[in-house]
């Protein structure tokens, strides 16, 4: 058994290549169809998920910003729990971060800012 707050929430997500891919901002719980206790079906990550944790005016502000950064019909960044490989001091995933829908803001910044500055695509020397 584990306590979600103590051992899962706010942990670092690491993708299949060892790249950092966000935090466990919240968990999605689903009630099974046949009844019984809820099951953890997904990790929610990104500002849309974080906003719910913060609550209050600040949480609302984060939510508004997050909503601008994604398609309005979509729920916050969701990573199916089936992609989790291992849980230790971080949560290790079996997918690459580019495949996750939590990677959108990072790729926006990468494509529109960082790649446009000379040297952005080269390792430091």
């Amino acid at each position, binding site marked *: 058994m584990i306590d979600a707050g103590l051992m899962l929430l706010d942990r670092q997500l690491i993708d299949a290549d060892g790249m950092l891919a966000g935090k466990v901002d919240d968990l999605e719980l689903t009630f099974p169809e046949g009844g019984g206790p809820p099951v953890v079906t997904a990790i929610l990550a990104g500002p849309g998920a974080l906003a719910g944790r913060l*609550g209050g*005016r600040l949480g609302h502000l984060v939510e508004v910003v997050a909503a601008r950064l994604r398609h309005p019909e979509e729920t916050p960044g969701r990573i199916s729990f089936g992609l989790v490989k291992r849980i230790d001091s971080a949560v290790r995933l079996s997918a690459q971060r580019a495949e996750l829908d939590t990677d959108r803001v990072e790729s926006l910044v990468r494509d529109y800012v960082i790649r446009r500055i000379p040297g952005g695509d080269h390792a430091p020397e």
Partner: protein
Amino acid sequence: MRKPLLPVVPALLLLIAVVLAGCTGPVRSFGVYESKAARTAKEEASAVENARLVVQAATGHKAFGRYLSQVLTETGDEASSIQSTFDAIQPPDGRSDQLQAELDDLLDAAATTIAALRTAARRGDFGAMPRLAAPLAGVSRKLDEFARAHQ
């Protein structure tokens, strides 16, 4: 339901604002004016002593001219800022007027001498600096006495 998030940033900004705003304010009594004058004298003494130390470095050919004129410019700017801050305070009574006159003489003497030193340093005339700086010893001593007398 939950407590609002600690207002850390506004609190810090407010704190800085309070500190900055606390620098000046209206002066209503001789006592307050006197302590401001003493503080001014102490600050000016610090600037004067700094100038004397720079002259000591200059006479020993211990520093580049650029550095010397740089430090003397800073010291001169500081002396004039000290004086203008002090002069901006209205003396509340007759005794304060007297105090102001006494201290202003010293501040003027210091400012004139430091300005002359600054000019000499800019021209590279380091030989003349000990002679130009001669009055500073007396000014410094008097500022010190003034600060002690009115503490």
